[in-house]
């Protein structure tokens, strides 16, 4: 009843939720086999760094710009081009507009 037809396939969120909840219950059941001695707010939850002191929050903080460093470095050629494209110059914004205008004039006007 609630399925979304696309002509070549279908998508039923209700069915998906049913399957997902069954999977969740299964997962929860498996989780029940775990150790029951774990307790919150005791020394058990503290990180163990070979006896060293835990560093302060600022030191542990991974900056957002350092995430995905590998991806951006391997895509360096693409990103240099993209950065070069976004000059931030108002005239360039208008120039891009005129460029697209010219391209479409050539394509649609000549055809």
């Amino acid at each position, binding site marked *: 009843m609630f399925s979304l037809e696309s002509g070549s396939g279908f998508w039923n969120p209700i069915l998906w939720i049913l399957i997902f909840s069954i999977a969740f219950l299964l997962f929860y059941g498996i989780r029940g086999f775990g150790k029951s001695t774990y307790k919150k707010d005791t020394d058990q939850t503290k990180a163990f760094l070979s006896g060293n002191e835990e560093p302060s929050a600022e030191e542990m903080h991974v900056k957002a710009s350092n995430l995905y460093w590998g991806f951006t470095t391997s895509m360096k050629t693409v990103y240099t081009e993209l950065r070069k494209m976004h000059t931030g110059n108002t005239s*360039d914004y208008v*120039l891009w507009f*005129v*460029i697209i205008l*010219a391209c479409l*004039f050539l394509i649609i*006007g000549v055809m």
Partner: protein
Amino acid sequence: MEKRTIVAVLVFTIVAVFFFFSLFLIHPFGKPGQVNMDDHIIANTQNETGTNNGVTSVVFDYRGFDTLGEATILFAAVAGVLMIFRRVKQ
């Protein structure tokens, strides 16, 4: 020359050429082709709107809603200018 200048000049020329070509396809200056809408307005402005001035009848009666939009634009500009020049609390 910079790359940007070359691209800009090239693109500029293309757009200019197309504009020139297209404008020669518009009716010649002073000889409008189709005029039925405007002739209707000129012929009926006096008995429909009671106005001697054809332009005012278009501005305020036939296309009065555009004028409301136009007044709104001025209003928005004034609000915008006053907002930009407001004194910010320290």
